[in-house]
């Protein structure tokens, strides 16, 4: 007998919440930029830590599914000529990555530079209107900025560069605009790193696909004609299939 169905939730509430967080972040960066940028940076670090954890689990899963008595990696012994040939193809696969990286960093760098120039000229204009003292930082904000020096994580220069241009003392539409420009600069810098990681992932992926096919072909060559390699699907997202149930 068919059990009572549990309808899946299709409410748009989570997406509305996501959009709300985005708007709140933009508002925070425009009005209290140092706090906003710190929150963003910490979120980036938290994302990187989560990614590193998932990648580590994936590597363990890969080893568990391919090593062991019936594991395909256990018996793989590449020859010298075969190894050189594989290395040549792998080098060839890295070439598009180099070109694409230069293009991404070049384009992003240009936009970040132009936005920086625009921000500086806008700040100069605002300060000329209001006088130097209005643009000064308050004591606690100075403290946050100098505290960045001790941030023991990569990317602090990017963050410092972003907060260097903000003017939290100015409570005006133009001040908020300056901060938003800095937010866009910050987002572009972070985006260029993400784009670089994405390109790196694409390349690693193509290399891994190629290496996997090479290992498989070598493995099948060593088997009697007509024999294949087993594949199963009773695993999870991060959980490998149970070892005792291996075929």
């Amino acid at each position, binding site marked *: 007998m*068919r*059990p009572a*169905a*549990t*309808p*899946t*939730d*299709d409410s*748009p509430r*989570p*997406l509305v919440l996501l959009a709300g967080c985005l708007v709140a972040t933009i508002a925070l960066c425009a009005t209290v930029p140092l706090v906003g940028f710190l929150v963003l940076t910490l979120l980036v670090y938290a994302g990187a830590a989560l990614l590193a954890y998932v990648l580590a689990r*994936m590597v363990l*899963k*890969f080893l568990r*599914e*391919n090593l062991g008595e019936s594991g*395909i*990696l256990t018996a793989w012994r590449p020859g010298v000529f075969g190894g050189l*040939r594989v290395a040549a*193809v792998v080098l060839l*696969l890295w070439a*598009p990555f180099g070109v694409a990286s230069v293009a991404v960093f070049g384009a992003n760098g240009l936009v970040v530079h132009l936005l920086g120039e625009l921000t500086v000229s806008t700040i100069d204009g605002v300060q000329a209107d209001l006088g130097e003292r209005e643009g000064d930082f308050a004591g606690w904000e100075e403290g946050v900025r100098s505290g960045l020096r001790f941030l023991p994580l990569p990317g602090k220069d990017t963050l410092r560069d972003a907060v260097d241009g903000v003017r939290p003392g100015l409570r005006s539409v133009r001040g908020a605009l300056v901060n938003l420009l800095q937010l866009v600069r910050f987002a572009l810098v972070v985006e260029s790193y993400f784009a670089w990681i994405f390109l790196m992932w*694409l390349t690693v*992926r*193509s290399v*891994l*696909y*190629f290496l*996997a*096919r*090479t*290992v*498989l*072909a070598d*493995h*099948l*060559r060593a088997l009697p004609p*007509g*024999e*294949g*390699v*087993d*594949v*199963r*699907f*009773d*695993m*999870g*997202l*991060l959980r*490998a299939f149970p070892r005792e149930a291996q*075929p």
Partner: protein
Amino acid sequence: MNLLERSTVHERDFAIESFDTLYARVGIGPNRAENYRFPQWRSCAIRRILTNTYHLNRIAPAAGLVWPVRAPTRIVVIELRGERLCFRMRQLAFFERSLRLSTIVNAQIPWASFESPLVTCIEGHGRVGLRIEGDPLLVSRDAGSGGDAPHINLPRLAAWTADTRLEIRVEPGYHNTVLVAAATAEITRAQLVVSAREDGAEVGSATLLRRLARLVVP
């Protein structure tokens, strides 16, 4: 009644009034105003965005409502009763709202050599519809079955149960490795495997240039 018996291939329009509320791929389905929803917005998010299935059309079945089928496309409707079905997202037509989408990662080298390690699954109690170009082949095989096991070209594979065991075979030769020659899967055990019987567009029709491009971006 096993899963194979609970699967139906539709060549013509079929009534969906007995179905539960459906989530259908946008642009296909009954001739009605569309009602976009984001069911299970955290499940298979990237794959769904890439295959334009992140937002789906919610259909409330009513008397006289039919699902249109146009040749050469066929719709395979599979009624799941707790089984987990792996499938290709691009072949999804619809699923009932009681079913759950999920992802498994298959990092086994024979599979990851040719296919994405991220495999989309659907499970629960309800019906799922898959679009197949041409006549589909539905196969079920027990572990102890004698005779020749059926072979399926990997790119033609559309859906398979999570208990499926495949034996991957490839033609030897370095050129096949570089040009990503399609592998064959021998089904050694499966409650159900659905594949396209003949589909030249899916297998082997890519030009040499596209095959080399696949080496860089698989």
